[in-house]
């Protein structure tokens, strides 16, 4: 077994130790919530869960670049770490998994379909790419109101780029130079469809030029690099420089969801070959080697995260489902009655 290669000096792009630790904790939180979802599903406690293992670097990096109280996030269902990173409570993730009445969607949506008006997380549906035009509309609102210093961060997968609505959204954003960053989390797969069946190009950023916006590709397993690229793009957007397409590469280590069986379309071997891209151990090692955390810190952090997730799991599990009659509410403003 070879000795550890000495770590290169930490390129921290202005991130303080505290912020770096915050990012690491975010990644551990995501991984823990992920695992919790799959675990609850296997235990038969929830019918469905979606995991994001492999996306943690993107989420922590992008979340670190997001300005709370100003920016708006328009995420997709893989963005558990990103949503927690911009202020959503882990408790909310569990509420959504358990479909409790206190869930922000009132138990209506699938897990991982977040929405938090107060935090600036736009409500999204399951329909791939349908949220991209919404993100552009939100960015347009900022522009119309001259709210410089604000921007929208809109994320989606590699598969989403094939949808017509994605195309239309990006084109409009470029024409109107709205303050938005399009963040593609390219994990090489759309359920069972590999990138090569999805598009005839290597790089998603090759699409940027045709819309007239800059495209930047980044190794999404590296949260600091992702932070740097997303922060720069958000800054450009916030100061009137218009939209950017960011492609952050990663690998989806889990099956698409608990309903998927990925052994039908990829080998265990392929997955293992990508293990070096796993952002969590990589970032742990990096921060350890740079002395940003100690082994003890790390153990404490993990324990703390697990304790929090355990606590909110127990708390939320004990909460009630929404009442059946809730099905009739929030169809339109006001009472349901007149709208038969």
């Amino acid at each position, binding site marked *: 077994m070879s000795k550890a290669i000495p770590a290169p000096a930490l390129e921290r792009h202005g991130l303080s130790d505290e912020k770096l630790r915050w990012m690491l904790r975010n990644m551990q939180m995501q991984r823990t919530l992920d695992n919790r979802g799959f675990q609850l599903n296997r235990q038969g406690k929830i019918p469905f869960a979606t995991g994001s293992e492999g996306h943690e670097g993107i989420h922590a990096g992008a979340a670190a670049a997001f300005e709370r109280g100003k920016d708006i996030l328009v995420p997709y269902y893989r963005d558990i770490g990103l949503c927690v990173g911009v202020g959503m409570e882990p408790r909310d993730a569990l509420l959504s998994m358990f479909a409790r009445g206190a869930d922000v969607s009132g138990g209506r949506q699938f897990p991982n379909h977040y929405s938090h008006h107060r935090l600036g997380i736009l409500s999204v549906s399951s329909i791939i790419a349908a949220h991209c035009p919404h*993100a552009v509309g939100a960015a347009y609102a900022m522009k119309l109101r001259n709210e410089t210093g604000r921007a929208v961060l809109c994320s989606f997968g590699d598969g989403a780029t094939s949808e017509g609505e994605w195309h239309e959204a990006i084109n409009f954003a470029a024409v109107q130079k709205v303050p938005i960053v399009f963040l593609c989390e390219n994990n090489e797969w759309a359920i069972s469809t590999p990138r090569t069946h999805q598009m005839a190009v290597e790089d998603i950023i090759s699409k940027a030029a045709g819309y007239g916006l800059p495209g930047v590709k980044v190794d999404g397993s590296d949260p600091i690099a992702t932070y740097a690229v997303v922060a720069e793009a958000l800054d450009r957007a916030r100061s009137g420089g218009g939209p950017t397409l960011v492609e952050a590469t990663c690998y989806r280590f889990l099956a698409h969801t608990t309903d998927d069986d990925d052994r039908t379309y990829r080998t265990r071997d392929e997955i293992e070959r990508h293990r070096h891209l796993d952002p969590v151990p990589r970032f742990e090692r990096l921060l350890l080697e740079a002395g940003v955390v100690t082994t003890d810190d790390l153990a404490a952090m993990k324990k703390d995260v697990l304790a929090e997730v355990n606590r909110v799991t127990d708390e939320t599990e004990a909460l009630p489902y929404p009442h059946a009659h809730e099905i009739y509410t929030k169809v339109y403003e006001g009472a349901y009655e007149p709208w038969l």
Partner: protein
Amino acid sequence: MAVAAPTTVMNNVEAVRQTLYEALKSDERTLIMGEDVGARGNVFLITKGFLDEFGPQRIIDTPLAEASIVGIAVGMAMEGLRPIAEIQFADFIYPAFNQIVGEAAKTRYRSNGDYTCPLVIRTPYGGGVRGALSHSVSIEALFYHVPGLKIVAPSFPADIKGLLNASIDDPDPVLFLEHKKTYRSVKGEVPSGHYTIPLGKAEVKVSGDQLTVVSYGLYVHQALEAAKRVAADGMSVEVIDLRSIRPMDRTTILDSVRKTRKLLIIHEDNKFGGIGAEIAAMVVEEAFFDLDAPIRRLCGPDVPAMGYALPLEEEFMISPDRMADAMREMVRF
């Protein structure tokens, strides 16, 4: 509607135009977006001059892409604006179906009220203008099944103003349908100043006690003409202008049917699965024993479109003569 304010005579185009203009003037959250709404002032000249007065940020000439016209408007609405999106012709609304049905109509529901979608989508629809296969369609029945959406289809200038104002004020998405044949052919008194007509209220245009006719859009005008003709034969027909398709004014329809005991529904749209189906089903559910005759639907034929050639278009459309014949048959039944 009893409005005392001074009125002006205008056609339906002018009513839409004036209402939009006043909305833009009075609320800076409003904006108009669509194809050719800028310099061209919309293909029917509804927004002519708006670009100069309100600027390109509020009068947005969009790229040619309907899904995003609606989808971007949804995002604007979620973020506090009051977008009024235009689909140039109703026939071009299909690419936006996902954004209307899957997204706009579900925003409030799926977020449990955390987000709302106060959006108006205006579009000219309907035939009789030699618009051929792709510029003549009626789309209301493709959308009226969708909870979360409201649909308005006024026929008179004063209703257009009141209902368009109400639609713009409404906190939920509204599909606002303008029958293009009425744009210049229909004129009427329109009260000055701001007023609204509540969505979901039909109007009895003519009272009668032998037959209820329910219609909307262009055919309200033809039905009124037909009712006048049969009145000359001593027949008393009540004509209801539905105005709103969803919510539907069950009370006005049921009250009328309970009085006249007969119902004829007239619409331009195809019959099978059209608005008339729900009206008939609702009435038979609620007022079965009040009916003296089968409910009849006089509707567009179940073919994909009206053709360009005049005889094809004429065959599709229902003339006041055919309406009067149906009224006579039903009164005599």
